[in-house]
Structures are given as C-alpha cells and as structure tokens.
C-alpha cells in the first residue's frame, strides 16, 4: 500500500516535469527564455507580500469551487454546470445587496443574508442540472453546458437591463455597492480575511464530510457503483441531488465572494473561468481533499504570475493556459501509464 502511494506520487511528479519540459520547448520555439518566464511567474506570484495577497484572492474562489466539486466527483457526477452555479451565486448575492443596502438593515446582516442568498442561488441552479439528470435523463455534461449559457445570458441581461448603471450600461458591470456592505479587506491589498476564512472552512467541511461521515461514505458508494449502492439501500437519486446541491451551494459561495469581496458589483464575467479551473484541480487531486489546498494555490499562482509576463517578456498570459492545459494532459497520461504498469506488475506476481 505504501509502495503504491509512493509510485503514485512519483508519476505525478514526472507529469509535472514533462509538462514543464513541453511548455519550455514551446517557449523556446516562441523565442523566449523559459527560465526567465518561470522566474517571472514566480516573482509575479510569490515575489512580494502584495503579489502573494493577489494569489490568495484568486485562491479563495478556486478553493471553494474545488470543495464543492469534490462532493460531486465523489458521487460520480461531472458537474460541468459549476460555472453557471458560480454565476447564479453572484446574481443572487447582488440581488439581495441591491434590495437591502439602502434600507435600515444593519450592514453586517445585509452581508450575511447576501452570502446566504448566493449559496441558495447556486444550490438551486445546481438542483436544476440535477433534476434534468435524475428526472429528465439529461446527461449532466450537456445539461450543465446549456445551463452555463443561460446563466451567462442572465448576467448580461441584468447588467444591460434591469440593473444597468445610470447613464450608460456596459459589460463592466452594475453600479458599485455602498461601501458599508463591502467585505473589509486587509490594508492596501484586495484580500479579505473573511473570504479567506470561509474558503478554509469550506474545504475543511468537505474533508470531514467525505472522510469521516456516514453520508460521505454512502456518497462515495453511489459514485463507485450506483447499482450496488441502490441494492444495498442507499437512496441513489436523493444522494445525487444532494451532491449537486451541496456543490452548487459552494459554487454560489464562490460567486458571492467574488461579488462581495473582490468586485463589489456584478460584472459580466463574474465566474472568470474558476469553474473550469476548479474541475481541473478537483480531477488532478483525484479525490484527495487535502491535496486540493496546495494544487489550487499552485494554479492560482500560475494565473496571477502569468499576468506579469506580457509586460516583461512580451508574452501573453496565454502561456499560463498552455502550462495548465499540458499539465492536466500529462497527469492524465501518467495516470494511464501507471495503471498499465500496475496491471503488468500485478500479472507478474
């Protein structure tokens, strides 16, 4: 058992190395020095306290999303609709803030209600994907893709329609909220400790849910073998629905954090691709909740560090995408190679 874990880890490292090699080759072909590029990514992410705080700002929604996705993954579900669930969380949060911010409601209560609304919004949107799957027989990948488009559309409609800024409406977003309902940030940074705390709590909840509870165990049973789980008396579809809604609630929380702590308004691209990135992270860590913490941090650092590149090396942050893409592909390939390897080793014995 211990041996397999070590060889597991070895294959993962090999995948990272190969991804770096391929990306380096691409960089060399593009006429850039890969070492300079990686140095810049590092300096742009962990180089200073300010940069580090930016990385954490990106880490928060990613980690919360991954927490949710680990629940659906455990239940064997491909929640591609997570982008839309983040968006719906953002919309619901904005709605409550707009409703309450100019009333006599205490700001703290407004913030709490808005975040709660975001979670409910995300959960309901996820319930839709879940219902389409369990009752309509619509594969969650297709349902999710469709619902993502609808959620994007709803944002655009709100920004250009009912919630448009006085004067000229623009994709840049709605009117900023009153400052009294912004989540306080630390010093000059954009980092909110409240949001950071919520992210850490989220991943801890999922860790305990999946590792240490009866519900988590049954959820995994549904994921591994739904028929067997059903025959053993696990209410399969209820568990699927629950997984969807839990994931949606976390995704909605991520959206709420983007609205309340980062942008203080609803913007056109409120999910900023965190849903897709979250899917990658959740897959890479292969159900091991603890690992999602550093892996998500690494991806967030790549995203933030990549911003630095265009200025210095005249490379677009596109290199980040290439690195993330190849990384995922190599991890997948190594996983395939490892399984073949293990099978062969098993046959020999």
């Amino acid at each position, binding site marked *: 058992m211990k041996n397999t874990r070590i060889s597991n880890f070895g294959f993962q490292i090999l995948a990272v190395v190969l991804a770096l090699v391929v990306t380096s080759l691409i960089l060399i072909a593009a006429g850039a020095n890969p070492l300079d590029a990686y140095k810049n990514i590092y300096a742009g992410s962990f180089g200073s306290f300010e940069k580090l705080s930016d990385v954490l700002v990106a880490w928060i929604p990613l980690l919360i999303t991954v927490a949710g996705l680990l629940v659906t993954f455990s239940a064997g579900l491909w929640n591609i609709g997570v982008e839309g669930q983040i968006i719906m969380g953002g919309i619901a949060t904005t709605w409550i803030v707009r409703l309450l911010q100019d009333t006599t409601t205490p700001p703290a209560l407004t913030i709490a209600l808005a975040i709660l609304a975001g979670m409910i919004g995300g959960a309901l949107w996820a319930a839709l994907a879940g219902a389409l799957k369990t009752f309509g027989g619509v594969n969650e990948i297709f349902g999710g893709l469709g619902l993502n488009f609808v959620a994007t559309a709803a944002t655009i409609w709100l920004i250009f329609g009912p919630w448009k800024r006085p004067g000229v409406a623009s994709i840049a977003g709605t009117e900023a909220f009153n400052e009294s309902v912004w989540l306080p940030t630390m010093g000059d940074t954009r980092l909110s400790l409240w949001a950071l705390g919520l992210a850490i709590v989220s991943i801890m909840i999922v860790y305990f849910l999946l590792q240490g509870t009866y519900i988590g165990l049954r959820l995994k049973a549904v994921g591994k073998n739904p028929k067997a789980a059903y025959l053993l008396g696990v209410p399969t579809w209820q568990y699927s629905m629950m997984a969807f809604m839990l994931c949606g609630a976390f995704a909605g929380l991520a959206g709420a954090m983007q609205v309340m702590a980062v942008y203080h308004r609803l913007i056109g691209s409120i999910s900023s691709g965190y849903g897709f990135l979250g899917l990658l992270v959740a897959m890479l860590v292969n159900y091991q909740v603890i690992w999602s913490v550093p892996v998500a941090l690494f991806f967030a650092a790549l995203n933030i560090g990549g911003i630095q590149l265009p200025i210095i090396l005249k490379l677009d942050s*596109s290199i980040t995408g290439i690195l993330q893409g190849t990384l995922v592909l190599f991890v997948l390939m190594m996983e395939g190679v490892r399984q073949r390897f293990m099978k062969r080793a098993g046959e020999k014995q």
Partner: protein
Amino acid sequence: MISELFTTTVLIGILASGIRLATPYLYAAIGETFSQKSGVLNLGVEGQMLLGCFAAFYVALTTENLWLGLLAAMIVGAVMGLAMAFVTVNLHAQQGISGIGFYLFGLGMSDLLFQKLLGTVETVKGFPEIYIPGLSDIPGIGEIFFSQNILVYGAFLLVPIAWFVLNKTTLGLKIRSVGENPDAADSLGVSVARVRYFTIILGGTLSGLAGASLSIALLNVFQQNMTSGLGFIAVALVYFGAWKPAGVLAGALLFSMVNSLQLWIQVLGIPVPSDIAVMMPYVLTILVLVATVSKVRTPSALTKPFERED
C-alpha cells in the same frame, strides 16, 4: 421602425447570413457527432477550432493561398485529434477533463502564436462567393442558398454525407456498435480502438475546418479567443440534435438564424431593447433544452473508456 425588418431585402439578408453563420456549427457538430456516436465525448472542440482558426489564417496570409490555409487547419485539427485519441483510447483518461485540457491548450497556444507571429489584427481576402449558374439568379432563393462561398456549400453537403456514412455503410455500423456496446463489437472482431481513433481524428479535422471557416471564409480575421464558446455550443448541438446529422442541422440553423436576426436588428438600429436582442440566442438554448429533454437516448458507452477483457 420594426416594420423595416419585414421588407423583402432585409428578410433575404437575414436568411442568407443565417445560412452562412451555420457553417462553423455544422462542421464542428457533425465531427463531434461521429466521435460521440463511437462513445467518445470530445470537449476540446473549442481548442481545436481556435488552433484551426489561427493555422488557416496564418498560412493563408503568408502564402496567399486559401487552400493551403484550409489544409493547415485540417492538419492541425487532426493532430489535436490524434493526441486526444491517444489520451482517451490508449490511456483511458477521463474524457471530460482531457477535453478541457485540450481546450485550455488550444486557447493558450493560438493566443501565443498570434502574439508571436502576427501581433496585430490583420485581414485576409477570404473564399469568394460562388454563384451557382442558373440557380443563383432565382430571386430571393438564389441569394439565400446559391450565392455562398465554397465552405458554406461544403458544410451543408456534409450533413447528408454524414447521415449516409453513419446509417448506410459498414463503417457507420461499426461506429454505432462501438458506441453502444463495445464489448459485443469487440467480440465480433471490430477493433474498438481503431474505430475510435478514426472518429476522434475525423472530429478534430472537422473542428479545424470549422475554425478555418471562421477565419478565412466568414470573418476573414484572426482575434484572440475568436470562437467565444462556439465550440461548446457545437458539443451541445449534438445533444440537441439527438446524435442525428439532420437534428444537428436543425439546431445549427436555429442558432445561426437567431444570431443573424439579432445582428440585423443591431445593424438596422431598430429600437428593440438591446438586452432582448443580446439575450435571444440564449433564451433559445433554454427552450430547445426543455423541448428535447427525455426524447433522446445517449449512446450507451459515451464517456466510458473501453478495456478489453483478456
């Protein structure tokens, strides 16, 4: 003002550009139909399209030969397909995730190449319209259907060809059997791996072609992320079309017509509230999604890697 929409000239214009705009959806979605029919979900279409867009544009710009551009896009798409096939067929990778990996790779790579090789937005002279003799002179009809460029004709011709191949040939039978019951197909001597390699590479080639149709036949420019979700819509269209080429055609036309209508409304400056115009294609998605729910059956082995029992 709104009556302006209903003049003959405008209606013909809307229909003609609707037909034209269906082109990239058709290539990409028909390609995806083949791979899904064989049991492989390729979510990397968007990335393949973007690289195809760039390859076609760059080669066409530098060699001033549109056909070479087209060829380049197809080769790039095929190579991406080959890589996808290796990862999913040989290494049994999760199809959804490897697709997203290819999407990110294509997005980043086309962007990087654009920065390094072009730097600025340029234009090429795309494929010219071909007026079919006789037919293009028919009033209205001629302008809508028979005055398009070669890639548009190709896209519409692809639909009956795809139907024929899938339903009337041995190859089509093999593809369907591999997607429905790979174990049975395997026991009858059909190589599951070979069939899936074929469909995934075909899908990649057609996605590359879809990208080329955007950059050297319809818009004649290359911009970063110019497909903006079109590849994902193509994946969804396969579902809407119930894995049938004719269904895919209907879905693609519905989308492109509504898009065309929305563009014309903006061009004419008709005071339909802009939010409603922008929303139209999306609202349509919901309606179609609801309408098709539970009427279709997914290929049984879709997304499931095949492992031979020894």
